[in-house]
């Protein structure tokens, strides 16, 4: 009942045994003895990594991919790949634009054919039956609105919050659409049992900004996840 216990606990129930769900990051690459850049871009390695971590650590759920820059790369951000750690964004398409230009240069919305999504979807197809056989939940981790807005705009995002709140609102709304698209792919296309929105940079915002910019732009993702009968989680 590993998966059942985990899902019931994530929905606020007290369960007989404490479930265990690791924020696995790029640890599977270490176990597989491959570089992180290779691991994150290879469907078979992503799937093997999820199963290997599950078997080794006997967890009740496992993320398929735990890379907060994945969405940003589909939108034109340029990564610097690392051997041992997750990639970092070194160039953002909106970072040098004036506020007047920003709205007209928002990248086209991605879909399941864009960027690394085909790799992630293929990894899900490989991992899901293996995890089902072990009664372990497959977890999709999507980037949250603040993460995406920050990766697209860079540090200028925080100046926009003060100086151009209307523009910041549009950028966060756009980023929320990206989070919702990721949630849909994880929940409906890959069939993840749990979909988490990971929005660590949002914790840098004061509560009023979190309520104004982040909370409204999470709702579309929650609606999609819940309509698909899946369990949602907000990671920060």
């Amino acid at each position, binding site marked *: 009942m590993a998966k059942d216990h*985990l899902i019931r*606990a*994530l*929905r*606020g*129930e*007290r369960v007989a*045994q*404490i*479930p*265990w*769900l*690791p*924020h*696995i*990051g*790029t*640890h599977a690459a*270490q*176990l597989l*003895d491959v570089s992180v850049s290779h691991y994150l871009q290879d469907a078979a390695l992503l799937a093997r990594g999820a199963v290997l971590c599950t*078997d*080794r*650590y*006997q*967890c009740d759920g496992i993320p398929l991919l*735990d890379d907060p820059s994945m969405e940003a790369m589909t939108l034109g951000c340029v990564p610097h790949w690392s051997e*041992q*750690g*997750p990639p970092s964004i070194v160039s953002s398409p909106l970072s040098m634009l004036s506020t007047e230009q920003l709205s007209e240069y928002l990248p086209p919305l991605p879909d399941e054919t864009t960027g690394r999504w085909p790799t992630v979807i293929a990894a899900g197809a490989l991992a899901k039956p293996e995890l089902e056989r072990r009664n372990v939940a497959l977890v999709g981790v999507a980037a949250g609105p603040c993460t995406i807005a920050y990766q697209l705009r860079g540090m200028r995002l925080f100046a926009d919050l003060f100086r151009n709140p209307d523009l910041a609102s549009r950028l966060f709304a756009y980023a929320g659409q990206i989070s919702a698209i990721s949630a849909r792919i994880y929940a409906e296309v890959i069939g993840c049992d749990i979909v*988490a*929105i990971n929005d*660590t940079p949002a*914790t840098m915002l004061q509560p009023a900004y979190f309520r104004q910019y982040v*909370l409204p732009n*999470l*709702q579309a993702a*929650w609606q999609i996840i819940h309509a698909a009968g899946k*369990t*949602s*989680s*907000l*990671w*920060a």
Partner: protein
Amino acid sequence: MASSGAHSIAIDECMALGYVGEIAQDYHVGFLGNFHVTNALFEETEEVTADVQRCIDEGTRFPGYVFGLGGPLTQHINSSRLDTAVTTLFHQTRSTQSISSFTENHSSDEAIVQKEDER
């Protein structure tokens, strides 16, 4: 976060787990966390078993608790320390059958552990 509309929240290692548990209970959501990855796994300055016990003691005071890491594993670690964390969790909270299963799986991974420990 608890009022965001999500079924659950996961928090980083800077938060007091018991405090988050109170909030999660008020909002009827699950909560996940927050084993000290930085000190216990990256810097190895904190005892693994003690921090797992902290999570168990604080987390189980409230419904909806899920044991998890207080941050992603973004650098190489001594995997045997994470093995120890899981063993501690299972010994404290799970049946004998589950512990036996974990020990068998762990034994089959000994080669991996030894290889990593050699690095």
